Structure formats: structure tokens, C-alpha cells
């Protein structure tokens, strides 16, 4: 009566353990599946697993007047077959598609990690090669902290030791690009 398909009465997933392993991004996916699974799980646990066993012989003795009815009932009851049903193929296919998507996602993540690790390694190597900051040369400061120090030997900028923002706008550089240009164009320097 239980059918040929394998019956599943409880989920084999350890949700708590799985939840610990997942990051918040994937925990949402988990909680959705867990919710659906939990609904069916509770329905399964509330309902009876198999048909009850009825002692028709005893009943016939008890109710001899209804023996014929009981006979017919017994026949009907014994001949009854409850279909178990099976998972539709398209749903199983959807799971396969999801697995493919997940594999692609993992591959992308691995590529990202490989790239990121190269970058991280570069940064770590840079600082591993650097001397202790107490022994930095003045050239090292410009080399290792370019956003805090500048090297006027190759950087095209105006010295701004008090950091008043002389290099933030191009006007000053444009004004002093050619020293021969006068402050006022109409004032001719002819003496």
C-alpha cells in the first residue's frame, strides 16, 4: 500500500548545523526552503502513516445482521490502493538547473577569490618588504603613503606643506604654467 517510491517521513538535513555554516547572503535561501519543508514536516508528523487494521471477522461476529455489508466493505477496503505519486520530472529538472546555476556561481566565486587573493598578496608582500616605519627614509613615505606624502621630483604639483588645497583646482597651475604671462594681460611690461 505504501507504493514503490521511497517514503520520506523526516528531513535528513541538520538545519541548525547547516545554518551555522552559511553566510547571511545564503541564509535567506535556506530559511525559505526550511519554511516549506517545515510545513510539510509538521503535516506528515500529525497524520497517520498507514491504514488502520480492522478485524472484520470480529465485526462480523459482533454484527451478524450486517455480515453482507461488512463483506462488501472488507473487499472494498482490501482492494483499495492509494497512489503515492511521484515528483514531476520538470521539478526534478528545475533542481538540476538550480544545481547548474549554483555550480556556475561557485566557479565565479572561485575566480573572484583567486583575483582577490592575488591582490591581497600584493598588498601583504608590499608591507612585508617595507622597512619598519621607524626607519623610513623620506623617500619611503612618498612611496608607501602616496595619499599623505608627495614626491615633487616626479609629481606635477605645487608644494603645499600646510595642505591648504593648492592642488585641488587646476587654476593655480594654469596661471603659473608660463612665467612670462603677466597677471593682467593689458598691462605691458615694456620698460
Amino acid at each position, binding site marked *: 500500500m505504501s507504493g514503490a517510491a521511497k517514503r520520506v517521513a523526516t528531513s535528513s538535513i541538520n538545519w541548525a548545523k547547516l545554518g551555522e555554516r552559511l553566510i547571511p547572503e545564503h541564509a535567506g535561501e535556506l530559511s525559505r526552503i526550511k519554511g516549506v519543508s517545515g510545513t*510539510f514536516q509538521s503535516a506528515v508528523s500529525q497524520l497517520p502513516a498507514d491504514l488502520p487494521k480492522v478485524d472484520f471477522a470480529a465485526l462480523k461476529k459482533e454484527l451478524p445482521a450486517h455480515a453482507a455489508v461488512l463483506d462488501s466493505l472488507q473487499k472494498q477496503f482490501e482492494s483499495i490502493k492509494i497512489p503515492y505519486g511521484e515528483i514531476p520530472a520538470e521539478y526534478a529538472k528545475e533542481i538540476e538547473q538550480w544545481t547548474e546555476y549554483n555550480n556556475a556561481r561557485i566557479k565565479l566565486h572561485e575566480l573572484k577569490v583567486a583575483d582577490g587573493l592575488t591582490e591581497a598578496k600584493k598588498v601583504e608582500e608590499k608591507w612585508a618588504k617595507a622597512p619598519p616605519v621607524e626607519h623610513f627614509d623620506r623617500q619611503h613615505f612618498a612611496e608607501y603613503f602616496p595619499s599623505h606624502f608627495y614626491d615633487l621630483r616626479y609629481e606635477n604639483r605645487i608644494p603645499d606643506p600646510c595642505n591648504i588645497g593648492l592642488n585641488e583646482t587646476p587654476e593655480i597651475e594654469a596661471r603659473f604654467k608660463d612665467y612670462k604671462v603677466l597677471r593682467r594681460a593689458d598691462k605691458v611690461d615694456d620698460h
Partner: protein
Amino acid sequence: MSLSRFLCPSNIRAVVPVRLAHASNVPSAVSTDDQPNYFQKIAYRFKGIPLKGETEAPKSMFDAVGKEWSAPEPLPAIPKDFKEHPDRDLTNYPYPARPMYPPKTRLLMMPDSWFTAFQKVTGVSGPYLFFGGLFAFLVNKELWVYEEQGHMTVGWILFYLLVSRSAGYKVDSWLYGEYQNRMNYFKGLIAEDLKDAVEFRKTSAEKTESLKAVRESIPTALKESMQLQLEASYRKNIENISTELKRRLDYLKETEAAKARFEKEQLMKLISSAVDKEIHQASFKEKYLANAIQQLQGLNVKA
């Protein structure tokens, strides 16, 4: 007239004249440590000794005088194989590491290296004789002519000695603190730069683990969820059949019970109606009443 007379009139023995105040540090025969006099109290203040009943030692402005500053911890050493470029010749041109302390000097400001170079040839006193002789020669031949304000140098040297010995320790401590703050700022910048790398390693490892768990569990969970759904509907059908069967059997049992009950009722009705009929007949009354009276007469009642 002594000031102490106004201060502690009861203690006549502790009379110290003002002009002898400097001598009051020496415990006098007339005062004890339990009861220091006014000037002794001042001396204790300068020395940083707490008075009786004071829990903390007084903070003296002369605490740091004459103290020599030294760094709590030395600067970190440069790795031996550190090279800015693979071509650097570390043997002949080692990396110029920052020294923790200034190089050694003699006679306040003369580099020690000037003396040691001579010392190898002329002995310990040689360099002094050489420099002294050279200086004397230059002065003698008026090659070195003193400027008219030149004697002020002596004053400046004295001033330097005074300041360096009194405030030197505090100045050095403050400068070291500021230097440490500056270095910590740069170390913070480095840590911030490295933090991204560390964070990336951590988060990427977590995500890899999470994706692995997802790959292992989610397809199974989805399949099991559908199987549970099948099981639930199957069990629902079982429950329907069970209730229907029970309903039918209950009906049969109930009809059987009703039939039995009806039969019983009918039988009872038949009996009671027959009995009633019998009772209401006149002959019944006479027959049974006479019989009963006879029986009562036959009773031998003893009071």
C-alpha cells in the same frame, strides 16, 4: 624674631631663624620626624616626602632634575636581509637605520669619533692635547680672534647645562611620546591597508564554505521537501479513508444498537401493558386481596 613663633606658638623648642632656613633639612635636635617644623615641612615638600597623615607623596617640580631619559623600548631592528632593491650592496652600504640615541660626544658636543681616530695613534690624552694645542696655537697666532661678545658663549653653555639638566628629561619624554604617536599613526595606516586583505581572506573563506554547504545540502533539501509533500498528501488520503471506514463501521454499529434498543423497548412495552391490563381487572383485585388478607391474619405478630 622668628616666623615659626607665629606658626606654632605652643612648640617653643622648634625655633629656626629665617636666615638658617636652608639648614633646616638636617634633622635638628629640637624637632622630631613626627612633628616637623615649618621649614622642615617646606623641605619635605621639595624632596617629595609626604607629611604625616598624607596618603600620597607631593609632586615635586624638581622630580625630573638630573634624571637621564632612556627609551622604554628600543626601536625595532631592521631585518638583516632588507634591501630596497636587489642591486643594493649591503656590505659596503648598509641601510641607514635610525639610531635610538644620538651618537656619543665628548666635551658636551665633540663627536667621539674625532677622538677615537687620534686615540689609536696618540693614546688616550693625545686628541685632547692635539685639539688643545691647535686651539692654543690658533689663539696665540691670532688666527682665531675672539669676537668682542665671545665670552657670552660661556654663559650660553652654562644656560644649556642648566636647562638640559633640569628640563631635559621632561622634554625628552614628551618628544618620545609625540614620536610614538606619529609612528602609531603610520602603523594605523598600514594596518588599515592590510585590513582589507585580511578581511577579504576571511570573508572569501566563509563564502567558499557556505557555497560548499549550499551545494551539498540545498538540492537534497529541495528533493526531500517535495518527497515530504508527497508523503503528506499520501497520509492525508490515508486519513480520509480511515475516517470514511470508521464512519461506515460506526453507522453499522449504531444501527445494530438502535435495533436492539428498539426491540427492548417494544418488549418492555408489551409486558407492562399486559401487567396493567391484568391489574385493572376486578377478579384480580378480589382474588389477590383476599389472598393477602389471609396471609396477614396468619402472621403471628409479637409486640
